[in-house]
């Protein structure tokens, strides 16, 4: 220790003349660009899924009503209690849409403690428009973006046969996919049958397939079918779809049913546990709507007979959907569980021809009409009337029935929906078997941006060498005017569709007549639309019934204007399996109430 040790500390005095480093007024000091300050919420982007509430470890977030719910949006918005918020921003990180962010504003003085509880984006705040603040740096990292890829048969391997293409998820894949679900349940409202989607996905995570099966059967006896070909509207409103891919709900449903043997399934579902009611119901049509009605009614103790015009039950799921999408044995497994409930299915019986509708009415306590849409629409363009022009729906049914159908080398298909894809791919397979090559051209009115068929269908069709031309309007089926082939189909003439919808999204096709093409084909298949064959009703009943824009009018419960008759399924709702199932449940519930009321009144 020396003299230096005494003097050196005095050098501190040099700081006396320093400018002070303190900020005079810290209120208003702007925080850094990434600062985690008060929340902002883009309420138009927010879907009210509540993931922010779930992740908040402080229970600072409540989901409060903001607007009426609509498909894919619960109408709820996060209300934040800043007495609890710890500014960790996990809510921002987990946000499924990216609507929730944080401003860099952090100073706010108010004497009312309740002012510090508000709904960002709804209750206007000075920082609502501040662009600086914390936002997720990139894509969602906390809940999984991509679904595991489904194993499918390679195009070459499937091109000449009707084997099922999709392998179904393995346990590992299914768990990975089930893991991505945030369990918001926005999908449940959109599913026509309101299936308990988050619950059965949770059962997959837990590996409890018995529970999963039980949950499926509570709302849907067609899990084999819907697990494969459901239109999965649920996936369109999935919270995960806002950034990344929606949860593969349909494949997960199939995964559950894939993992429960038929015997086990019967054990889980069981048979009707109520005494017989002594009431009789006739169901016309053994498609998903009719059979779901039958399943529910049988489990309520009623005697149900289902009348089916075709040789096998299943309706459009059997006769419309090709086997490579829905194998017949999978459909049979669903139907077997329904049959096990005591439902009698009389196939090959066409009501109206074989048995009069009046007879059914007389012999039963209720009649349910679930006849589907089995007539194909025609474009009625010139030349469309005559040999060589087929309806897709007829051809598909004939292929299912095992009948021989004409398979020319060149086929043109009119239509851009899933039926068009089904018939194109079916014909492609038959052509491969016969000629070793595919010659199918699909012409669709719609352009690919407005395409009706599922994206997967289009992708797989391309893989199978199907030619798909979008935005082409059919003008004429061209026939040979002379020669040996006179009168036979030569091709399909189409015009380019310049635009299909107007500014309001209404159908208003504009053609470019200069862009005319004749697609060479020996056969033209029309796959533009379908309608119900209501001839079984007869003139009198047709006149007596109320109608709604071409379809039998029904109330919310599926009742027609005739007290004894209910109607549902595709013929009433338009084509969709899961809607048909939902209809079946609704009708069964309504019929059950009517029958039980009648029973009490009668007793």
């Amino acid at each position, binding site marked *: 220790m020396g003299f230096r040790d005494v003097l050196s500390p005095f050098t501190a005095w040099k700081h006396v003349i320093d400018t002070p480093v303190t900020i005079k007024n810290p209120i208003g000091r702007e925080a850094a660009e990434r600062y985690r300050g008060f929340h902002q919420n883009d309420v138009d982007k927010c879907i*009210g*899924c*509540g993931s922010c*509430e779930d992740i908040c470890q402080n229970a600072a*977030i*409540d*989901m*409060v*009503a903001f607007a*009426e*719910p609509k498909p894919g949006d*619960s*109408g*709820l918005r996060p209300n934040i*209690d800043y*007495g609890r918020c710890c500014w960790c921003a996990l809510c921002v990180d987990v946000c499924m849409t990216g609507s929730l962010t944080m401003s860099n504003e952090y100073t706010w003085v108010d004497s009312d403690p*309740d002012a510090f*509880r508000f709904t960002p984006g709804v209750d206007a705040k000075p920082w609502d428009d501040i662009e600086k603040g914390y936002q997720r740096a990139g894509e969602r990292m906390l809940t999984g973006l991509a679904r595991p890829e489904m194993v499918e048969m390679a195009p070459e391997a499937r091109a000449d046969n009707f084997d099922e293409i999709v392998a179904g998820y393995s346990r590992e894949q299914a768990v990975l996919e089930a893991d991505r679900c945030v369990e*918001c*349940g*926005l999908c*449940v*409202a959109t599913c026509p049958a*309101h299936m308990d989607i*988050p619950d059965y996905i949770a059962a997959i995570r837990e590996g409890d397939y018995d529970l999963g099966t039980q949950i499926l059967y509570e709302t849907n006896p067609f899990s084999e079918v819907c697990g494969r070909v459901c239109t999965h509207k649920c996936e369109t409103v999935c919270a995960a779809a806002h950034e990344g891919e929606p949860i593969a709900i349909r494949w997960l449903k199939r995964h559950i049913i894939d993992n429960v043997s038929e015997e086990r399934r019967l054990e889980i579902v069981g048979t009707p546990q109520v005494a017989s009611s002594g009431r009789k119901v006739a169901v016309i049509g053994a498609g998903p709507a009719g059979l779901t009605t039958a399943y529910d009614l049988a489990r309520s103790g009623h005697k149900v007979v289902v009348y089916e015009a075709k040789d096998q039950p299943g309706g459009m799921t059997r006769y419309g959907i090709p086997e490579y999408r829905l194998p017949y044995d999978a459909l049979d497994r669903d139907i077997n569980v329904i049959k096990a409930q005591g439902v009698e299915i009389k196939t090959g019986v066409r009501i109206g021809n074989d048995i009069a509708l009046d007879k059914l009415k007389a012999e039963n306590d209720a009649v349910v009409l679930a006849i589907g849409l089995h007539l194909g629409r025609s474009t009625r363009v010139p030349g469309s009337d005559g040999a060589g022009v087929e309806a897709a729906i007829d051809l598909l049914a004939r292929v299912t029935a095992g009948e021989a159908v004409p398979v020319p080398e060149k086929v043109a298909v009119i239509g851009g929906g899933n039926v068009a894809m089904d018939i194109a791919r079916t014909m492609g397979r038959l052509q491969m078997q016969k000629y070793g090559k595919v010659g199918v051209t699909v012409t669709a009115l719609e352009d690919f941006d407005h395409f009706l068929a599922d994206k997967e269908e289009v992708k797989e069709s391309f893989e199978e060498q199907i030619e798909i031309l979008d935005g082409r309007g059919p003008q004429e089926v061209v026939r040979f005017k002379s020669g040996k082939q006179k009168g036979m189909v030569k091709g399909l003439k189409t015009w380019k569709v310049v635009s299909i919808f107007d500014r309001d999204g209404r159908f208003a096709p504009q053609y470019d007549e200069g862009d005319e093409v004749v697609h060479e084909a020996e056969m033209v298949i029309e796959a533009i639309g379908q309608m119900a064959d209501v001839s079984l009703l007869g003139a009198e009943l047709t006149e007596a019934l109320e109608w709604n824009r071409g379809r039998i009018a029904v109330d*919310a419960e599926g009742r027609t204007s005739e007290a004894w008759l209910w109607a549902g399924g595709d013929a009433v709702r338009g084509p969709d399996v899961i809607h048909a199932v939902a209809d079946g449940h*609704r009708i069964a519930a309504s019929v059950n109430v009517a029958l039980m009321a009648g029973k009490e009144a009668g007793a």
Partner: protein
Amino acid sequence: MDMRELIERLTSRHKLGAPIFQRPDLTFVDLTDNDRLRALLVELRDIEGFTHLVLLTAVDWIEEGKFQLTYMLNNRAANQTLGLRVYLERKDPVEFTSIHDIWPTAETYQRELREMFGINFPGSPRVMDEFILEGWTDMPPYRRDFDTLAYSQQTYRDRPGRATNDPRDHMKSKMYPEG
């Protein structure tokens, strides 16, 4: 230091369970004969170079009726950490041998374990003194059956006016109350 060799060497004299080689520098092993704890610790400290008691803590396996005590030891020269685990029957009173004389710092850990888990270490200095909690009469709070949520609900009051909605139930009540 080869931890596999060490465990083999120790197994010849102590009853050890199957070791878990968690990382090249971290091993866990169960001691199945609780009476041999002190002997094993002293051997590890004085012969095997595990001179540093990293931590001593408990894990409550309430479903299995056991408390796990983990003695985390470190051999700095070899850069090896060994988590030695013993299991105590989970029925009161729970007592175990004190090691404060092997590592004086264990006194603090043992005081805390007594207070938070109700595991007593007779003979450990000040072991019955309050450590963190003052005037605590409830069960030892770090036991699994002490419910912190219930405790806070009993002790504190929720802020009035807060209510939340489950999106799925909310949509059902608004969009399809009947279905």
